[in-house]
């Protein structure tokens, strides 16, 4: 049953991604709406899947790559829907849904069995640390999507080739603003996630910091975003530079998420 619901959610996200791609090539007001409806349907099913898994295993279903990736995608969709509600910029979907779909698709390729949570890790820190880390990273994911939109629009305006997506992309200032806002949300979440992680590590493993690859990469990601905010405040690195940095930051997030788990021996193997 969980599998069917998951596949259905994946199908809806796939359909929404296709509509998003279509939206990039063809203008139509109906497409954005359709994309939003399909995404919302996928989101409802996705939520159902997570609730079902929660009841099966008794804790937040984020152990194992399958569940972790799926939960990550879920956080992104949640923030995306919220962003749509707040700003109503239809075309954003075309840049976010592909990320969601690829995450869900890779989630579907991982083994789906529920990996039991090691008793050492079973504490309230588990929920706090992981939810903060996931939602922080989800904000960064969307920030990078918006960053891509910014770079595209900036290219059109600078090169004076005003074809393609120029008309459908919103103005530069709002893209920069959304990008910045998402990072200001994601950064404190990540910061608290790292702090709670440190505290949790002490209580679970007996030491605060072990230079585990995941810890190192999280620190790298954190540094990148700290830099984004710092340079913006001090040197006025806004617009293009901020957009590029936010994309680099998200690549680091992705590496922390997938790379570390697949390439290194880590304590953070999602179970």
């Amino acid at each position, binding site marked *: 049953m969980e599998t069917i619901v998951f596949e259905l959610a994946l199908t809806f996200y796939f359909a929404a991604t296709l509509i998003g791609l279509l939206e990039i090539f063809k203008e139509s007001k109906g497409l954005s709406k359709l994309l939003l409806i399909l995404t919302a349907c996928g989101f409802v099913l996705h939520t159902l899947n997570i609730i079902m898994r929660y009841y099966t295993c008794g804790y937040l279903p984020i152990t194992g790559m399958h569940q972790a990736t799926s939960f990550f995608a879920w956080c992104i969709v949640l923030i995306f829907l919220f962003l749509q509600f707040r700003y109503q910029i239809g075309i954003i979907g075309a840049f976010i849904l592909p990320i969601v779909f690829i995450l869900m698709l890779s989630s579907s390729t991982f083994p789906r069995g529920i990996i039991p949570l090691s008793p050492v890790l079973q504490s309230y820190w588990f929920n706090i640390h992981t939810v903060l880390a996931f939602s922080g990273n989800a904000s960064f994911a969307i920030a990078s999507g918006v960053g891509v939109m910014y770079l595209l629009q900036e290219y059109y305006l600078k090169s*004076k080739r005003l074809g393609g997506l120029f008309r459908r992309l919103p103005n530069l*200032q709002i893209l920069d603003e959304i990008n910045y806002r998402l990072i200001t949300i994601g950064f404190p979440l990540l910061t608290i996630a790292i702090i709670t992680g440190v505290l949790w590590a002490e209580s679970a493993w007996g030491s605060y910091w072990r230079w585990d690859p995941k810890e190192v990469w999280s620190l790298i990601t954190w540094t990148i975003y700290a830099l984004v905010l710092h340079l913006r405040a001090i*040197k006025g690195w806004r617009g*293009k530079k901020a957009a590029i940095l936010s994309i680099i930051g998200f690549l680091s997030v992705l590496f922390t998420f997938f790379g570390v788990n697949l390439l290194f021996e880590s304590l953070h193997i999602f179970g």
Partner: protein
Amino acid sequence: MDISVIGLNHKTASVDLREKLAFSGQKFQEALMGLKNLPMIDEVALLSTCNRVEIYVYGRNSEKTYETIKNFLSIFHQIDKTEFEPALYFYTNRDAVKHVFRVASSLDSMIIGEPQILGQLKEAFDFALNKKTTGSILNRLMKKAISTAKRVRTETRIAENAVSISFAAVELAKKIFKELPGKSFMLLGAGEMAELAARHLISNGVKDVKVANRTYERGCELAKEFNGKAVRFEDFLKELLYTDIVICSTGATEYILKKEQMQKIMKDRKNKPVFIIDISVPRNIDPDINQIDNVYLYNIDDLQQVVDNNLLERRKEAEKAEAIVEEEVEKFLKWLESLDSIPLIISIRQKAEAIKKEELEKFRHRFQNLDKEHLEAIEHLASSITNKLIHPPTIALKESSEDKELLAMAIKKLYGLNEDEEEE
């Protein structure tokens, strides 16, 4: 009975001729009433703008009407017929309906998609309606022309993009900044096009306006006009620090703003975006400035290119619009046809037959043990009642020629024959 259009426009007639044939002020009403009194004209409306003069007519024998109207124009404007005859166009029925719909949708305009014409057309028909020179046919034609124009506007992007340099500047500013009201603007120098662009920016909400002119007095004058403040020309670099949009049009023969200067300014403004429009020829602003992050420099050629692209886009959209017009013309003609008496007589008959059949069926159902003889008698009775009832309207439709359309419409309404007709 035909719908026809007689007129001339910017494509067929010179300004000179258009002026001679235009109806303005008191003359407009005079002409309209005069036209209404012409023989064979049942309904008439008149449009007179700087780009076109058109007369819309519903009446008998359109060819003769055409001649009559030409004579009327000649006498009314005291101008020889041969002088304007070659510039006239004359459309009837399908072509006339199509022409009106195209005009309303701004497909026949000098600048395709410009929005004024619909308002002018509406006004012309409203005037005619008030003076009671139009009736059911032309009123419906106008109603449908408006809805066609609205469809064109919402379903195509025909009026979306700027097609003048000054509007293109505003359009670009809106793609750089979130909202114009909070932005500050500086006009460097003066000139017709620069002032026009400034006016467009101001009408789009820009409030903080500065004018820097080499002649300070002239700057003060302009600043007053724009509700802004004058700045000494020597101070413009300092002012750039607090300016988001610049329009530059001075007579300088060399660059008044160099890349290094701008780099420093950008650093000081913490890279807040600046949009600079340099419409001076020769250019006043170092083109390399465009390479600096968050600075967007457009010169006159860049803007012209934007406009050209937009015009091209409009022409592409116009093709879509033509298809919509075609569709609506078809609908209108179908309605016109439905007023024709023969199909109407048939549909009254069909309706009567249907009612009769339905009622007989019910009757038979209720009195199942009635014998054949009685049944036939009842059927006969039903037939004779329905026939008697539909006889007078049938005769009236066949015989009338004067108010056929009015009658047809009344009958359709009274008999409830309007079901397939969408009403708004």
